């Protein structure tokens, strides 16, 4: 419950103004909370007179916290390759493990795993738990979740990290639910608090606010981590580690879901979430042909093509390219937006990009509010010239 101290409250209305859920109103000079409150805590942090507090019922640990030690990462492997995020998780996992003075382990599931375990060790893992089975050749939620759940119950890691990919976001919640463990989605920052708990920071409310989440009373502390945010540890062939091959019980490999086929598709493989450079087009492209320019620039830069909802709805490009609230969320090194006005629905999908370059005719377009570099101009004039300059640079 949100507690409001009527004595301290000065009715300034700051809490009312910043509540994303419309849950606080100032009535007769005092803040009043209604049923829409989600206890997110924003108002508590923003109240200058300390009139607000969240009354968290003392819960206490539900498990023996001391029995859990070590950092684990799920090493996603699909269609014969490790997902880049697996190495990024090892990078951040190594840092956390070193700070806590514990070991770092990777869990590798699949079929035909060859030397992948050695790669994981060279990138920072001390131990690799490996399960190789035809039943794991294609991603399947039930066996993947069952095996990870069993391994966690047996070895009791304190922290478990996975990529916030289609695979990680699909099966990790099942594991966390089965274990009664807290799970934080789509983290962009991980740190260790003074009390040793994992501080998991993620964008909330479409990236308009950041929230740091902790799981003080349950173990393991679980998080999915957004691809491309963490730095992979460098390859070190001299590192040594242990590979533990496991043979799970037959029934834990069974599934009520049958994967009839798993198709790699160029149309879908826009790899938006893993591209370092993304070139995006919006309504300002005027028509389908406008995307030829976007593609040309993306190809030249070795980047991926994205689009705003307006361009997708107009049928100029497929939905897998859509970035924003009802599309994908990306965090590339460079995001170039051409003819995108910058509606909040688009911004929430790309505002975490390291550098944002915006090209738009309208100097008042909201996209310039989030841009690192802005060009006010006609994209049909700017882009061809930019493409020429880049070509000249390469030559």
């Amino acid at each position, binding site marked *: 419950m949100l507690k409001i101290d009527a004595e301290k409250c000065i009715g300034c209305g700051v809490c009312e103004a910043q509540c994303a859920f419309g849950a606080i109103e100032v009535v007769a000079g005092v803040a009043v909370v209604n049923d829409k409150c989600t206890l997110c805590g924003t108002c508590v942090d923003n109240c200058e007179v300390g009139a607000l507090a969240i009354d968290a*019922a003392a819960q206490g640990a539900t498990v023996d916290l001391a029995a859990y030690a070590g950092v684990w990462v799920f090493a996603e492997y699909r269609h014969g390759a490790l997902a880049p995020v697996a190495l990024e998780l090892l990078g951040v996992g190594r840092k956390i493990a070193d700070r806590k003075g514990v070991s770092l382990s990777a869990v590798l599931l699949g079929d035909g795993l060859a030397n992948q375990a050695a790669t994981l060790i060279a990138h920072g893992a001390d131990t690799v738990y490996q399960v190789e089975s035809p039943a794991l050749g294609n991603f399947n939620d039930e066996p993947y979740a069952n095996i990870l759940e069993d391994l966690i119950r047996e070895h009791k890691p304190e922290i478990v990290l996975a990529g916030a990919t289609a695979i990680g976001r699909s099966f990790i919640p099942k594991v966390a639910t089965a274990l009664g463990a*807290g*799970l934080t989605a789509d983290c962009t920052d991980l740190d260790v608090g003074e009390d040793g708990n994992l501080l998991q920071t993620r964008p909330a409310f479409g990236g308009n606010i950041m929230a740091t989440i*902790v799981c003080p009373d349950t173990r393991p502390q679980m998080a999915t981590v957004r691809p491309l945010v963490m730095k992979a540890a460098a390859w070190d062939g001299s590192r040594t580690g242990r590979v533990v091959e496991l043979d799970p019980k037959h029934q834990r490999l069974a599934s009520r879901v049958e994967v009839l086929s*798993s198709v790699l598709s160029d149309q879908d493989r826009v790899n938006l979430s893993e591209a370092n450079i993304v070139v995006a087009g919006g309504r300002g492209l005027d028509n389908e042909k406008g995307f030829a320019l976007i593609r040309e620039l993306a190809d030249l830069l070795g980047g991926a093509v994205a689009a705003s909802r307006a361009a997708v709805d107009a049928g100029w490009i497929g939905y897998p390219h859509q970035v924003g609230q009802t599309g994908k969320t990306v965090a590339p090194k460079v995001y170039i937006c051409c003819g995108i006005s910058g509606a*909040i629905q688009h911004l929430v999908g790309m505002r975490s990009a390291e550098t944002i370059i915006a090209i738009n005719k309208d100097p008042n377009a909201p996209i310039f509010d989030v841009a690192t570099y802005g060009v006010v101009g006609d994209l049909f004039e700017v882009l061809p010239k930019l493409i020429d300059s880049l070509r000249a640079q390469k030559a």
Partner: protein
Amino acid sequence: MKIVCCLKQVPDAKNVRLDPKTNTLSREGVQSIMNPYDRHALEEGVRLKEKYGGTVVALSMGPPQAEEMLREAIACGADEAVLVSDRAFAGSDTWATTYTLTMAIKAIDGCDLVLCGKQAIDGDTAQVGPGLAHRLDFAYASYVRKVHSIQDNALLLQRMMDDGYDELKVALPALLTVVKEINEPRVPSLKGKMRAKKAEVRRLDAAAIGADPACLGLAGSPTKVFKVFAPELRGDRTMLAGTVHEQASQLAAILHSLQ
């Protein structure tokens, strides 16, 4: 076939703007809407009902105001509406939410198929669907973009992946989370709107679903919000001046330095 569509009422981000000076949310005129992905889940439920027969129950966990959204669901083709609402649910994370929804689904005598949107636009976790499937002991598939058919008590469907797609056969009872590509939601018919006006929205509180208070709301949530803060401001914006040619060469140089 009994189909439960899980619907969440969320603030409409369309009207949310960030104040670039203070970097805080301005929620002037922000309305509550049905989570856009859930609208596709509801539509898919109604389509499956129309093709294979059965009933569609619109289920929401939320404040009393969510009743409005559930009436809209009836206008869009749901047969029944159930609102699980209790102050004890406030502060629920996805673990407590899946517990509450599971108890609610059991309280309405279960179902054969649960449909959810892939995620809600306020929390963006995508965790409730898979977590709910686990608690119900249902088979599930996330990011479903096409249900081909229901045959031999199983769903044949296509799931979107990061690098392509998977064709799956999912045994019933099952839970699916859907992406917006799956269908084009209908607009409510006049008849539907009339029905929605008269329809009764069933209300269930924590006691009615037989919930253990220790598993509800903030107390029942393993994840706690430690702090909330505004994302860093991009204070370093540079507008490129000059002729088109000059702007383009500056951009090329910037891109070169970033690579």
